[in-house]
């Protein structure tokens, strides 16, 4: 008898829960981390993914139905934000399809020193104030007038009332606030479509891969505030300030990720790593600047009963011993270019390992090559459980038949007896 969507939902959640806890499941779970592939497969442009919420929903559902993954990649997360909203607030940190990059490309970050080297003290003194009056006016064109707001902390000093409200009524600030109201309405419209989509995916029997995102504290500083070059120089020129800033950010990250996960009821928190890979810093630097706060983020989420899903973009082969230092059976470690078999050998008794199929193979290889790779992964990495089949990185491009082969072959060959 065919299983009901409710039964499938339970079975799939359980299967993933089993591998996270390093128990042997009924079979190897397979979870392709779709991104713009949804659009491509659904016959829409990447631009439409950002602008046409209904078409995007249709594309996601079609992909879910045709591929039947064990978890469905959250369609809200990987699109980041709707195009119209980003246009309205004049977001400058990102180029997205149809806005700075062509209609079928993916969004990309425009890196910069949005926080200048000499601004660490200002950030550390009052991060919220720094973000409101310095960072946001640089990132969002529409918020430029916020530069001339008084610091909100004056409100507790007794004399702020007339000062702050007068600043809000200045014509350029008032105009910015008006735009924010409209952008907020658009954001609500998008969120309501995404909420219904998520509920529908659940009703169709697909648990979401995650519904909360966190970043390694080092990456918060490196990606969004100082830029790659800036953060690299800071490791030499102002290491103490950098560490102070990273430690300042940690509890904020933890709180935000925990809040989102608990609100959604989905235990998995997606943590894509950007700047800690082999080559991007020495082992010493990794142990000094990157790992201590990332580890605290991971263990902090675990103690809240959550499951960090850490995507190690790039190669982390030289760091496997270091990242082993976490509680057993509580995390998903997703590897891109890291030596997969070595990862299993070193981490197999502490972490569930995810990934293994190169995106390049999915793009340019044959069905037979994909099956061969999956077989090898199931035989070696899947041995004794603790493995989720996936591509190495988020999937924008792939031959659909190759992805289908990855899913179907895993379901057939990945059964544990």
């Amino acid at each position, binding site marked *: 008898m065919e299983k009901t969507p409710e039964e499938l939902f339970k079975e799939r959640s359980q299967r993933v829960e089993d591998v996270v806890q390093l128990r042997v499941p009924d079979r190897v779970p397979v979870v392709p981390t779709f991104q713009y592939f949804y659009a491509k497969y659904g016959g829409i442009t990447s631009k439409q993914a950002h602008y046409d919420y209904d078409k995007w929903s249709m594309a996601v559902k079609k992909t879910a139905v045709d591929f039947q993954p064990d978890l469905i990649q959250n369609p809200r997360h990987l699109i980041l934000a709707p195009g119209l909203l980003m246009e309205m607030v004049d977001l400058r940190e990102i180029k997205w399809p149809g806005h700075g990059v062509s209609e079928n490309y993916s969004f*990309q970050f425009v890196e910069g020193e949005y926080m200048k080297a000499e601004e660490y003290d200002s950030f550390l003194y009052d991060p919220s104030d720094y973000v409101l009056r310095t960072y946001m006016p640089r990132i969002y064109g529409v918020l430029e007038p916020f530069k001339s707001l008084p610091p909100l902390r004056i409100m507790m000093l007794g004399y702020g009332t007339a000062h702050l409200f007068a600043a809000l009524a200045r014509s350029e600030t008032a105009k910015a606030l008006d735009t924010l109201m409209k952008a907020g309405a658009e954001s609500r419209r998008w969120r309501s479509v995404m909420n219904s989509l998520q509920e529908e995916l659940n009703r169709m029997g697909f648990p979401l891969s995650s519904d909360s995102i966190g970043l390694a504290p080092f990456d918060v500083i490196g990606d969004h505030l100082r830029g790659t070059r800036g953060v690299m120089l800071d490791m030499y*020129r102002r290491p103490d300030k950098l560490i102070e800033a990273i430690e300042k950010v940690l509890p904020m990250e933890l709180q935000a990720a925990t809040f989102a996960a608990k609100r959604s009821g989905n235990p998995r928190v997606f943590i894509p790593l950007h700047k800690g890979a082999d080559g*991007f810093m020495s082992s010493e630097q990794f142990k000094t600047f990157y790992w201590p706060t990332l580890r605290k983020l991971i263990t902090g989420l675990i103690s809240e009963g959550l499951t960090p899903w850490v995507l190690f973009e790039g190669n982390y082969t030289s760091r496997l011993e270091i990242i082993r230092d976490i509680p057993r059976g509580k995390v998903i470690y997703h590897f891109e270019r890291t030596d997969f078999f070595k990862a299993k050998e070193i981490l197999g008794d502490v972490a569930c390992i995810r990934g293994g199929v190169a995106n390049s193979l999915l*793009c340019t290889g044959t069905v037979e090559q994909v099956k061969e790779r999956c077989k090898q992964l199931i035989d070696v990495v899947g041995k004794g459980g603790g493995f989720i089949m996936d591509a190495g990185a988020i999937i924008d491009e792939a031959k659909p038949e190759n992805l289908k082969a990855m899913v179907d072959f895993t379901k057939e060959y990945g059964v544990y007896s």
Partner: protein
Amino acid sequence: MAEDLLKAIADLHEEEALRITEERLSAGDKPLDILDEARRGMGVVGKRFADGEYFIPDLVYSGEIMKEVTNIVKPKLTGEAKVKRLGKVIIGTVAGDIHDIGKDIVVFMLDISGFEVYDLGIDVPGHKFVEKIEETKAGIVGLSGFLTLAFDSMKETIEAVEAAGLRDKVRIMIGGGQVDDEVRKYTGADAYRPDAVSAVSLAKEWIGGA
């Protein structure tokens, strides 16, 4: 000469390197000699990177120190130093892709290894590569791309080179992000290299064999 500037740069001692530069200039040392020693210090940095002793942040930092040393010395320079170059390389991140970290590292390593590098930047359409090949007669082209979507841009760029009748005039290598040998076959490039160090070795090989 004690070569203490070389050592300060090689060991990434910024303040010391700047202090020595100032002192040498006031002592009447030739600006070109100072720059030459600084460059040799950068050569040591490149070698340590190739040996796995240094990492990307070390390269970025050394580049910054070199820039400052040059800024101090430049006003005193009278003639232009003629540096002998091994060969010409054109490099860029292909159309649609705006990632530059990996490309910049390759540019840096090629430069300190003695190549004349034409860095076309990011999001470079195929015809820009073609124009630059025609203009510089460079024999080597490097295509960088981080996104899987860049595979098609690389393929199109190589097709554009082909269509311009230049394919047999250049050797093309690709790298970055998800690129591997499968992608090389798909794009029609001559070679794929996984990192800056092996890219430089290959470029040297190609120059030697040409």
